Each structure stands twice: as structure tokens, then as C-alpha cells.
């Protein structure tokens, strides 16, 4: 009994509940004639797809900038890189890495400007981030229409200008990362490449937080006054964290798209930040502290729920309630995290 209580305490009640729910879903999946192997595989694919984007939230949380609801900014940078890579007709791994490489400078520029804004509004970051994200998405709606891309697979077939709502990557770098070293056992497919990449990104972030800048950043997040007193440039650290977060967001969306198969432009990036934030919080992170462990666990649980509820609940209960369940679970998690007591900063 004590051990169970200790476990619940260590893992956190919401994680235990959600985890239990997920296990239950897997257990009853055969009743709904759903292959467990395939479901697990779907969950893993989604986890690897979304992992980098969840990871992108970590630097900002660590530096005390809160949850990055402005993730769409990074996503837009990633989309620009991906579009350029298709426009120049670069295929395979070259195309993928070109997309990532090109998106990074965009992300750095966006992130820098965004960081400057956030430094001016300490305390209100999350609210402003949300609106910076929203308004940048609608600004880009105009840009997608006007940017002079010419590749026929990207622009409207009829009008001959302006980008389509969804742009297929299937002829360029669909699944290049997913299928790298991947294997299939029966219904079970494992996207080894994406996991290797996710691990690599995690390693980079882990390594970064062990450098001098990284530790300084954590210090800024946990106690800005103290950090200032010990000679750390607080604003600079915060800006770096925002730039880093935006760059990771850009890479994250490229990984996502190579698995997904399409670039989603226009209003596509609008609400992309919310699932990522929900996943991170589900993993046990709080508004000002997040670890890589939180990222991995949270993404797995969140994506597991997303994959399993529609198929299992729909086929068992014959309803289409899954969408609502997802809304309630993911936003409920965010609220839960926001209402948790945290030690008062400053």
C-alpha cells in the first residue's frame, strides 16, 4: 500500500490515471477488433512525429518564459524551409536536411524578435505568446498567397499562383526519416529513424543544458534575481532560450511533415501549440520546470490517448465522442498544471 502511494506520489496522480486509462484502452482493443500491435505502432509513430515539437517547449520553460504558446512562429519557419526545399526540387535526405537547415535562420530571426518582445513583458509571457502566435499565422496567410513560389505541385493548379492549402511532400521526402532502418513485424511497424532523430535532439538539448550557457539559463529560470546578482545577463539568456525554442519548433514541424505527408499552410499552424503544451504538462512538467523525461512520457501518453480513444471508444460505444474527450483531456491537463501551487518567483 505504501509503495503504491509512493509510486503515485512520484509519478503524479494525473499521469497514473491517464496511464491506467491508456492501459485499459489497449486491453479492450481486441474486443473492438483492433489490432494491439498496430495500435502500439500508431502510438509510437505519433510520438516520434510530435516529440521534437514538445521538446521545443523545454528551453523556454527552463528559462522562466513559461509555456511557448507562440510555437506557431517556429512552425512557420519550418514551413518556409520545407517549401523552399520542394521549390528547389531537392529529394530524399538531402531535401529533408535542406528544409531543416534553411528553416533554422528563419527561426533564429523570428525567435530573436519574439524574444525581444517577451523580455519587455515579463510576467505576461504566455498571454502575449498566444497572440503573437495567432497574429503571425494570419499574417502568413497573406504571405502564402503572395510569395513567388512556382513549383506546380505547390501552387493552385487553376490560378497559377499562390500556395495550396496542403502541399504534398510525397515526391520529395515523404517518410525518409521514418523509414530509415525501420522494420515491420506483422502489424507492428517501428519508425526507427524518427526515434533515432528524436533521441539525437534530446541529446543535444540535454548537452546544451550542461554547458555554461545552459546552466545559466536554468539559473535565470529558477531565480532571476539571484542570477542577475551573480552576473548573468538575464535578458540575453531569455532571448537565447526563445530562439532555441523557435528553432526546435521549426525542426519539429519538418519531422512531423515528412511522416504526415503534407505541409499544412494557412490556418494549419493555428492551434498546433496546444497539443504540444498539453503533452508536456501531461508528462509532469510545470509552468517553470520541464525535463526530457516529462517530454518523453507526456508525448507517449498524450499521443496514446489520441490514437486509442477514437478507434476503441468509437467502435465500442458507436459514437463519435472521441473529439470531445480529447478536447477535455488535453485542455483539462493544461488547466490542472496552471492551477498547481508553485513556489513564488521573484
Amino acid at each position, binding site marked *: 500500500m505504501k509503495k503504491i502511494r509512493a509510486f503515485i506520489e512520484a509519478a503524479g496522480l494525473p499521469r497514473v490515471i491517464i496511464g491506467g486509462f491508456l492501459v485499459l484502452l489497449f486491453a479492450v482493443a481486441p474486443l473492438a477488433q483492433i489490432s494491439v500491435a498496430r495500435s502500439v505502432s500508431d502510438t509510437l509513430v505519433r510520438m516520434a512525429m510530435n516529440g521534437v515539437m514538445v521538446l521545443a517547449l523545454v528551453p523556454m520553460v527552463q528559462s522562466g518564459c513559461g509555456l511557448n504558446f507562440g510555437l506557431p512562429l517556429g512552425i512557420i519557419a519550418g514551413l518556409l524551409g520545407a517549401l523552399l526545399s520542394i521549390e528547389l526540387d531537392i529529394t530524399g535526405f538531402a531535401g529533408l536536411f535542406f528544409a531543416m537547415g534553411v528553416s533554422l535562420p528563419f527561426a533564429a530571426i523570428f525567435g530573436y524578435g519574439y524574444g525581444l518582445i517577451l523580455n519587455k513583458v515579463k510576467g505576461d509571457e504566455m498571454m502575449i505568446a498566444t*497572440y503573437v502566435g*495567432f*497574429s503571425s499565422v*494570419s499574417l502568413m*496567410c497573406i504571405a502564402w498567397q503572395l510569395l513567388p513560389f512556382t513549383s506546380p505541385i505547390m501552387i493552385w493548379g487553376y490560378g497559377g499562383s499562390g500556395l495550396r492549402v496542403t502541399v504534398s511532400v510525397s515526391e520529395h521526402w515523404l517518410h525518409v526519416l521514418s523509414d530509415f532502418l525501420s522494420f515491420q513485424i506483422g502489424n507492428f511497424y517501428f519508425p526507427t529513424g524518427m526515434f533515432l532523430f528524436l533521441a539525437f535532439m534530446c541529446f543535444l538539448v540535454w548537452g546544451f543544458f550542461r554547458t555554461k550557457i545552459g546552466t545559466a539559463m536554468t539559473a535565470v529560470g529558477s531565480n532571476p534575481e539571484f542570477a542577475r546578482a551573480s552576473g548573468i545577463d538575464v535578458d540575453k539568456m531569455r532571448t537565447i532560450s526563445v530562439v532555441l525554442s523557435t528553432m526546435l519548433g521549426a525542426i519539429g514541424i519538418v519531422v512531423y511533415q515528412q511522416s504526415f505527408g503534407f505541409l499544412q499552410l494557412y490556418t494549419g499552424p493555428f492551434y498546433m501549440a496546444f497539443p504540444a503544451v498539453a503533452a508536456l504538462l501531461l508528462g509532469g512538467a510545470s509552468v517553470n520546470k520541464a525535463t526530457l523525461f516529462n517530454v518523453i512520457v507526456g508525448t507517449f501518453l498524450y499521443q496514446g490517448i489520441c490514437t486509442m480513444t477514437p478507434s476503441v471508444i468509437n467502435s465500442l460505444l458507436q459514437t463519435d465522442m472521441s473529439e470531445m474527450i480529447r*478536447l477535455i483531456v488535453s485542455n483539462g491537463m493544461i488547466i490542472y498544471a*496552471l*492551477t498547481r501551487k508553485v513556489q513564488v518567483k521573484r
Partner: protein
Amino acid sequence: MKNKSFKDILISNAVPIIFLVLSAAAIPLSGFTTSYLIQEMVTRMGRNCFLVLSLLIPIAAGMGLNFGMVLGAMGGQIAIILVTDWNIVGMQGLLLAAMISTPISLALGWLTGEILNRAKGREMVTSFMLGFFMNGVYQFIVLYGFGMVIPVENHAMLLSRGFGIRNAINLQGVRQVLDKFLMVDIGPIHVPMAAFIVIALFCLFILWFNRTKLGQDMRAVGQDMAVAKSAGIAVDRTRIIAIIISTVLAGYGQIIFLQNIGTMNTYNAHEQAGIFAIASLLIGGATVSRATITNVFVGVMLFHLMFVVSPMAGKTLMGQAQLGEYFRVFVSYGIIALALVLHALRRRMDKERERQSLRGGDAPAPANGH
């Protein structure tokens, strides 16, 4: 007060001024006639002011912009659905809708208040997410509850599968009953006098409320929670009451809004209520910590003026109708971000100045901030 420089006035009214300049440039581009614009403004003032006014009390209580007002809007919508189903028409229908929405909004407001008390310092983002969360619950009730648990008599409102309300409801029974109740024509302009009387009553209520003991307490809590607590004010309770009042009033506001619009999008009508109301208030020169009735009227006016003219102006500028549309969305979100940033900047400036004046010397006195 006297040595408030021109620059100070500019900075403290930056948002309305920017908006005024933008609109001034956009109006000729849009090509609308003066009478159309005035009529449109009058109509929109009548339907939106109440919603925006409902935001004032939580601001006084120091809880920032109450994004949780969408919960009240949901309560109002459920009431409207019921009244339309029962086919209660005219003023009676409208009043009954308001009455039904009251207990629903009370409960939702209490819930919001409880949650926000656990998220002190993060009220805005928490209430924002709460809106998304309750959206799921609302969908669940309306899409499954109606027809399954709550009986629905009017089958034209139900999906053909037997439960769940259709995505658009025609509010024929209560359509514009408040507006038409006392319509005064001034020249070519129709003025929905009854709606404005209701709004005026609401303003009086706010002015009266500020003078009551509860209103005073609320301001004290808004100034400094710790001081208020040591003065014997029940801080948490006061905050909950502020949110409850705001939520209930938002429910009424949504009912007024919907009777003017005449049709309701069952699953989405509330989504924009909060965003647009907040944008209007901020554009009127309000800040997260200080908002007046004047801010409300100026804000609704400017925001909706921009709203009406910007798609057409954007079209004229960029040659494509849809670009004008995207531009409008960009402006409405961008302005909120801008207003929040400017507010934060101003707060910082004030703090800086305070620090200087504490050091003594002949530094300028702090601006009459908040």
C-alpha cells in the same frame, strides 16, 4: 497631473491613437457611405457593449481580462436553445432566456472563480484555457445531452439521428425583439433605443456597485491582495463574486448579441465572444489593470469600425478580397498582442519613474497610472 507631458498622453493612449489613424486611413479606401458606417456602428454598439461591459468588474478586482466570460456566453446559448425549442417568443422569450441563463452562469462563474483562485498571477492564461476546456463540455451537452437527456420538442432543431442540436439555429422567435422594442429613427439611422437603455442601466449598476462596500473591497483586493487580507477582507470570496457577476452578465450579453444577429451557430458562436470583447476593450485604451466605461464605448466603436472597413480597405490596397479578410484577422489578433506589450512597457516605465522619485531629486512625478 499638470506636468503630464504630451509624450505621456501619447504613450498612455497609444493603442486608441494607432487605431484611429489606421481607421482614418482605411475609411476612404473602403468606399462605404457615411450613413452606412454610422448605422453599422450604432447597431454594433447596441449588440456588443453589454458583452464588453461584463469584463469591467474582474479588472477592478485585479484579475485581469476575464477570458472565462465565454462560459457565461455558453450559459446564455443553452438558455436560448431551450427557449427556442419551447417556442417562447417575443420579449417573454428573451426575459425567460435571461432567467434560465442566470443559474447556469452562476454555477459556471463560481467554478471559474474557484479555479482562478488557485492560479493567482496567471488568471488570464488560465481563464483562456478554461474557455477551451469548457468548450468540450459544452459540445458534449449540446451534441449528446439534448435529445438524449434533455427532451427536445422541436424536431427541426435536432439532427436527424434523434439527438444533438443542428449546427445552426434560427432564432425567429426572439429575433431582434429588444432592438425593435423601441426603435427610434434619427434621420436615416435606426437606433435600437431599448438596447441602449439596458446598456445605460448596466453602466449605472457598475457606477453604483463601485460605491458599495463590496465594490470598495474589490478595488482593495485589486490593489494589493496581502494588504486587503490584513484589512480583514475575504480575498478569495471577493474574487469569486467578481467573476460570478462577470459571467452572469456575459450570459445576458450573449443573449442580447444573439437576438440581434438572429441566427446562432450552435457550436461556435461563443468562441469569438471573448476574443472580440477583449480586443474591443483594449483598443479603447483600457489596460489589464484599469478599465473604465469610456474605454468600453470608445473601444467597441473603434474596433468595429476597423472590422467593417478593413476587409474592403485591404481589398482595395491588395487587389484581392481574401487578402483583405486575412488582413482583418491579423489586425484583430495583432492588436491584442500590441496592447498587452504596450501595457507591460508602460508599467515598467512607471516603475522606473517611481524608483527615481523615491531617490528624491526633481524627477517628474509618476503618471497618474493605476
